[in-house]
């Protein structure tokens, strides 16, 4: 009767911070310090509308200035905190995470989606752009970046069918049923 109980899954707070995350925090901290400084300068130099004799405490740059000052403080804290925690091999781990197969898959999504939304939409009719995108997306992720890869002959009909159906249904439903103009 002694049934083996599975180990309880850890609650999110139980996990220790990996070294790669500490270095990622350092990079993020520096990025936010730069961003906050730029915004602070932008807010300080923003037109204070003195010619319109507005109350100086209501100048448009007041709130962005306060917010960027707060972001600057947070950025400095994040940077200093990441510098203080030892993270052996942190940069190497972070580099490995950036060139991992997972990140490559995300990169492939990014390339496909950017080509679709920045180049194809607007250049081709929407239904054609959508069909091409769906076809390419399914093909890339089923026949190339999948583990195990699907045979091309099995993926092709699916990719083509889904592309045609998506292009037709999205165009018809939005333009005819919901009366929305498509890009």
């Amino acid at each position, binding site marked *: 009767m002694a049934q083996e109980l599975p180990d309880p899954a850890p609650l999110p707070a139980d996990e220790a911070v990996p070294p790669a995350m500490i270095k990622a925090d350092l990079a993020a901290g520096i990025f936010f310090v730069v961003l906050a400084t730029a915004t602070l300068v932008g807010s300080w130099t923003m037109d204070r509308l003195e010619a319109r004799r507005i109350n100086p405490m209501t100048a448009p740059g007041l*709130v962005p200035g306060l917010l*960027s000052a707060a972001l600057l403080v947070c950025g400095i*804290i994040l940077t200093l905190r990441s510098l203080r925690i030892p993270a052996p091999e942190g940069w190497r781990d972070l580099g490995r995470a950036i060139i991992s197969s997972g990140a490559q898959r995300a990169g492939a999504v990014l390339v496909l989606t950017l080509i679709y939304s920045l180049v194809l939409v607007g250049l081709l009719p929407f239904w054609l752009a959508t069909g091409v995108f769906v076809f390419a997306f399914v093909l890339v992720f089923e026949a190339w970046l999948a583990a195990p890869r699907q045979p091309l002959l099995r993926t092709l009909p699916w990719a083509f069918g889904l592309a045609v159906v998506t292009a037709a249904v999205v165009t018809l439903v939005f333009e005819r049923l*919901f009366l929305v103009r498509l890009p």
Partner: protein
Amino acid sequence: MFDGLGLLANGISHFLNPISLFNIVWATLLGIVIGALPGLTATMGVALLVTLTYKMAPDQAILVLMCIYSGAIYGGSRTAILLAIPGTPASAATTLDGHPLALQGKAGLAMGLATTSSALGTVIGIVALALIAPLLAEAALKFGTYEFFWLALFGVIISGQLTAMDDPLKGYMAGIVGLLVAMVGMETLHAHQRFTFGIASLGGGVDLIPAMVGAFGFAEILGVMKRTAQARIVSSSDRVVPKLGEVFKYWKTIIRSGLIGTFVGIVPGVGEDVGAWASYAAAKRASKEPHMFGRGSQEGLIAAETGNSAVVPGAMIPTLTLALPGSAAAAVLIAAMFIHGIRPGPLLMTESPETLYQIVAVLLFSTLAILVLGLTLTKPLLTVLAVPRERLMAVVYVLCVVGSFAITQRLFDVYVMVGFGIAGFILREMKFPMAPLVLGIILGDLLDLNLRRGLLLTNGDPSPFFTRPISAVICGVIIVTILMSIPAVSKRVRALLPSARAQSPGQG
């Protein structure tokens, strides 16, 4: 009191017609499917559906969006139990006990318990919504410009504190970045263009819907496609409809979790995931069998599901009465309400009191629909889970593009969606929460306008911000919240409170 009951009866009868009932059924079912599909979250579903409901009558549009929202929060439990992947972030706590139950051959029981406890959680939240919202709306009429400034700041701070898991600093930073994004474009006090860099499309600022579709849609697609491992569906053969005794044995847990979920919902920008974790942690502390938690505890499953579902009506309380979104999905609902000419806020109960009770009625109907659909459509929902994500995500991205384009018909909004998607993905990978960022975008204008308007009224004197009673209280809460998030301070305070030391901080 009787006025309220009368309005509620009106709200219910308002939707007792074939078109509304049809909309309730399909929208709840679509919500369940969206929630069940990993990579499609409640917030994303609501954001994408705003486009589809654009041409509907306001009451039907809100009905559809509310049904999608509550359906999706429930639908996530199906995936959590059968695949060990939370269908939406709200079901992460459900995975801990739901999946072990499924592995023990009790998948049907787990799904049945999840369905009934979701329904009960929503009912507890609905009662709170119907009772608290009118009172809060009345109290909110006393709020002036000073109080609204603090409320907006409080919303961002508390959301940052509670959604960032164990690192509030990142939550605050996400919130501040959101507020800064809201600063882009024409400000409303002096009509001055800020940070537009000569780009005409930025003059109107960054629209919330494309930003949300990016941060919750495109970013999610990138996150889902990054993973290589495919999960296996656990088969279920046992009975799905639970015995009443199995559910009501844990009535204390249900009521406790429902109340915790509702409270978490009321807190601005803190959503269903925190509601589920907080209820789960409380149930574990109070349970007679805490060692079973994480190993297939029915009580844990009930706590998580009641907790996350009660957040939905709870989140509508500040959303409707203060226009402070109680969760990320509620932020989209605010944007949708504005599109349809409904103005949430303290004046809602004066301008259109029927709206609140219509929303209560919609939630009641969608709960019924969840109960019926969830307990009957076990097999069809199983086939939904088998859809390969490679095919699904391609279609979802097309919907993201259409969804962000359709409202104002500008390609610029598609670029905003892409930008927020990429930034959202990177920030999420670095454990920055998205909810405070979104809350910042929606509350930025409120914060900016009320601070400077307050200073204009007093000719530059900031003292009313600290001396008016309600302002002083909210300001005090903000200061304590920030101080307590500094490890050195909270450690010393905890050392002074012996009872707090015994308890683990829990999640949320």
